[in-house]
């Protein structure tokens, strides 16, 4: 299995993109499947409500079923279009992403790590017909299990693969570049940034302990008995100072 897609950037510098595996792929698909199913269902319900307003009945969908073939097709065709065009359209518009892929943090790229063109994305989606055989994408999943980059037949056909989306990572360099008069080293600044970023996710005793350890590391006095919010405030002040921002 290849866990990285390595491509050359300028001056022979290599860029590595982590390849997304079956887990991320399935996770994204499940989110997308629910979204498109619910959207299609929402359309059907909307039409059923509108038809129901015209001819009230006890049963929700019965006015729609009784309204004749034209009304039924008018309800079903857009719902089918939403369901079947969801992937190709969104992948083209969102440049290799869908809402599900975005939530799973992955995107589609070519083997040169570029956004695929519309043709490749359409081909990739056309091959869903085969990947979904005999049911529930069994063939696609089996092929993904046995290919180096964990791709389904549609990806093999289009020359695409899924990678973790590093392109949308924050490009704010303030957090990682210190101010010249800062007393924090680059490593300390990173540590501080990480601690503040993860603050809410950590247990209270743990984050307090880590904050005190950090202050001791940079030679700051550790005030005993201070509240947790005071401690956090102090860390934020240190971060702002290291970025050259007014405290």
């Amino acid at each position: 299995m290849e866990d990285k897609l390595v491509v050359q950037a300028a001056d022979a510098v290599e860029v590595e993109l982590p390849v997304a595996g079956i887990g991320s792929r399935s996770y994204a698909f499940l989110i997308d499947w629910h979204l498109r199913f619910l959207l299609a269902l929402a359309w059907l319900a909307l039409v059923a409500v509108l038809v129901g307003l015209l001819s009230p009945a006890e049963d929700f969908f019965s006015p729609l079923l009784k309204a004749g073939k034209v009304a039924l097709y008018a309800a079903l065709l857009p719902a089918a279009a939403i369901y079947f065009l969801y992937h190709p359209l969104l992948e083209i518009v969102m440049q290799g992403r869908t809402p599900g892929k975005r939530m799973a943090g992955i995107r589609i790229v070519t083997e040169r790590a570029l956004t695929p063109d519309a043709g490749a994305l359409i081909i990739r989606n056309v091959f869903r017909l085969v990947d979904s055989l005999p049911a529930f994408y069994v063939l696609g999943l089996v092929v993904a299990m046995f290919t180096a980059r964990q791709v389904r037949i549609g990806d093999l056909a289009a020359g695409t693969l899924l990678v973790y989306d590093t392109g949308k990572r924050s490009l704010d360099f303030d957090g990682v570049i210190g101010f010249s008069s800062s007393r924090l080293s680059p490593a300390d600044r990173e540590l501080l940034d990480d601690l503040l970023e993860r603050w809410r996710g950590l247990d209270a005793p743990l984050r307090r302990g880590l904050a005190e350890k950090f202050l001791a590391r940079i030679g700051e006095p550790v005030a005993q008995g201070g509240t947790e919010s005071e401690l956090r405030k102090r860390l934020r002040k240190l971060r702002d100072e290291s970025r050259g921002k007014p405290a």
Partner: protein
Amino acid sequence: MASRPEAALTAWLQGRAAQWQRLSRILAEVSSRRQAELPQLKELVSGYRALARDVSLARAAAPDAKLVARLEALLTQAREVIHRRPGNARDALAGLFRDGAARAAFELRGRIAAVTALFLASAAAGWWLVHSYPELAALFASEQMINRVQRGELWTDGLINIVPSALLSLGIMTNNIVVSLFAFTLGALYGLGTLYIVGMNGLMLGGVFALTAQHGLAGRLAEFVVAHGMVEISVILLAAAAGVELGEALARPGNRSRAAAFRDAVRRAGQLLPVCVVFLVGAGLIEGYVSPDPHFTMAQRVTIGVVYWLFLLLVLSGRLRRRPHGRSDLPL
């Protein structure tokens, strides 16, 4: 206090940070617009090269630093924008009609002949089977269809009164497009899926014609089919020929890997698909509006069918290709 190497690293970072921020801004601007100014693009390219060197230095100085990850993300974005292919979907589609489909059809002429032969053989087999063993008609037609034929009616009789033409067309074209796409994509199963689709469609056509012939309705069925059927069957066979090409690439990849041969085959043969889809939309409209309408005479139906089929041949022959103007053919 920061040590000496760390202080040097910090000083270097600060010296470059403004450039990275600027490159980041240019990228955002260029990405959000379809066209960009030349000076801005030049700055983007030079900034990209400088950034690559910075990434290299940053990796050596602090391989695990968050900064490296952010610089790599910026480098990936810049590379994406710089290497982005100029895309114009309308031109690309027009190019397929002018040239791409004709080239693909020419390259696949052997496969087209082979699947056509298979289709005709299957149709003949279907005819023979139902002609010889009439009870086998149940394999190709529903009980309801068979009952109507036995009563001297075609299942298409009065179709236009039951379903509006627009919906009929939409349903038919969707079905035909799905069949064509299956004929193409099932080529990924070493071509076997494609051959199955061609064989089954041939058997069904032959079987159904044999069934109607037994009750003197074959002429009327031909009358129904002729306007849309010539293009519809031709297009499905084209998609099948493209599918066979995929199977051939997998079975005999030559000196490339199977994956590479398969991808190349999809790129080459897949150029036929947009043309197939467009012609199937037309065939669906004909099948919805013309074929079930009793007001059209046989001569009109044949004319529509033949003209539409000739138009398909015209596209596939490459005669729509744009000729370069003012070019001398004389060697200079």
